[in-house]
């Protein structure tokens, strides 16, 4: 099996970074909708954590359902979720690992002092022991340009 990669359109890359800057110093979060490993829509979601949004994020079940419906409506798949790490590196935390779902891509953008820095993507290993980092490709290929919902 080839190494999985995730591709972001430039607009998605920019949207995730902008969301991270906006909510700084708090974490942002959102759903990534796309097809065949290419994210076409970064859909911002409210961070509903009650443990302090500086270090945590939580997507409510209702918002999760909404994201699945949005994907279905647009003829896309739910590929995963993104979130930001304010003033921390773009590496998954133990907490990320404990709460991860299989087969999703988890994109993390590091936002230092309000400026977006590195953006990485991670997938849970099947036995839940750790994440594998997957290469992030910023794509510009017109063949990937699907109509947005």
């Amino acid at each position, binding site marked *: 099996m080839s190494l999985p990669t995730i591709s972001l359109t430039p607009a998605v890359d920019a949207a995730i970074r902008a969301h991270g800057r906006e909510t700084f110093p708090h974490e942002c979060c959102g759903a990534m909708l796309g097809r065949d490993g290419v994210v076409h829509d970064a859909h911002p979601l409210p961070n509903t954590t009650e443990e302090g949004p500086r270090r945590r994020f939580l997507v409510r079940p209702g918002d999760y359902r909404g994201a699945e419906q949005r994907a279905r409506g647009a003829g896309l798949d739910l590929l995963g979720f993104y979130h930001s790490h304010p003033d921390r590196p773009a590496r998954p*935390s133990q907490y990320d690992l404990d709460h991860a779902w299989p087969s999703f891509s988890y994109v993390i953008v590091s936002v230092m*002092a309000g400026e977006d820095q590195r953006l990485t993507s991670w997938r849970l290993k099947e036995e839940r022991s750790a994440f594998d980092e997957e290469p992030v490709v910023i794509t510009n290929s017109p063949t990937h340009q699907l109509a947005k919902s």
Partner: protein
Amino acid sequence: MIKILIPTPLRPFTDKLDTVEVSGATVGELLQNLTTQYGGLKQHLYAADGTLRSFVNIYVNDDDIRYLQKNATPVKAGDTVSIIPSVAGGSPAATETLPELSGDEIKRYSRHLIMPEVGVEGQRRLKAAKVLCIGAGGLGSPAAMYLAAAGVGTIGIVDFDVVDFSNLQRQLLHGTPDVGRRKLDSAKDRLNALNPNVHVETYDAALSSENALKFFAPYDVILDGTDNFPTRYLVNDACVLSGKPNAYGSIFRFEGQASVFATTDGPCYRCLYPEPPPPGLVPNCAEGGVFGVLPGIIGVIQATETIKLILGIGEPLIGRFMIYDALRMRFRELKLRKDADCPVCGTHPTVTKLIDYEQFCGVAPHQLEAAKPMMTNLDAVTARELKAELDRGDMVVVLDVREPQEYQINKIPGSILIPLGDLPRRYVELDPNATIVSQCKSGVRSARAQEFLRSKGFTSIRNLTGGILGWIDQVDPSQPKY
């Protein structure tokens, strides 16, 4: 058979099906049968102890089973059961990368390690912690020394000043041999002598709107030891904008204040004081003096609160404003509330980036250093010119507007003492037609006296440029400076 909807991430374990039909009379039975049929699901739905993972939500139709009968919730034909993920995550906690303690460190911190509130984990938290002290002066000295002794791993210091004799009465980071050195250098030497395990990071700059967020970024707590309003508002706003707690302290004469501002749920300095006082109303320590042991108390309160925040113990000084009166030896506490209308931390903030704080506080840059810039010769006189006039025998009244205790240290021979605060009721003692030169320590208070006397109809009143300090420099070096 009951329909179970499978969310996207679990479909690889159900042969890519988004709906699976399973039999059972309760949710518990359904899930058991589901995971028997599709074994790969088990570890993602259940924790090692066999309970459902907290971020796995099971809905029967539109209701969360947590609010029904949990696993015992009955199901019947026609119901739809959904497995719905809560997606959660977060930044690496400090604990994940906590550094180990060396054998030397275990010996050094043994009195901490045997207390359950600190312990090995707490001490490792302290070692991983980064605290930025704004200023290495009266408050920064005791605070940084206790933080270093306690084992805070990284202490940053922002300061641009040089050690002066007048600092030594209270700024314990610096000793007599350090006079003339950069405060950063003597501070670093002192802290490393106390505890060589501490990494001291120095920033030779005045904190500004341009550099504050960049300086703050790597730090966990900001300790405000500033002595002026523009920097105090700058520290507060930068703390709110970057989400870092502000261990605040300030001192004046015999009174000190302390609080913890800009935590997620707590108030900030602007919730208490949205706007600065009019310029000149509140004198600084250089003008008004400060009781030397006072910053010892307040700086150590700031260090205490900083360490409590790092350890996550006790009741932090959040939403509480501590006022200490050294003369009466009394502590008072005011309750503070987060103000929803606060311009920086409220629900609809109007300050969303750092502004020009000197302008905000009505202080022109460097105005405090000398009051001379916009004055013409009619308004000002230098010490040399004044000396020449006095030597010629001109009829000049030198009006000293300092406090009596300052007058005891040094004075211009023949000067009259009327402290600025007494002037409104004592100006009648002066002849409005006399040629007057007003004078203080450096020229700030005397400029206000000049303004006041003019408003009362005095015609010839000039301000002595540089005050008594200028007089000593230019005319009479035999007198002591303070």
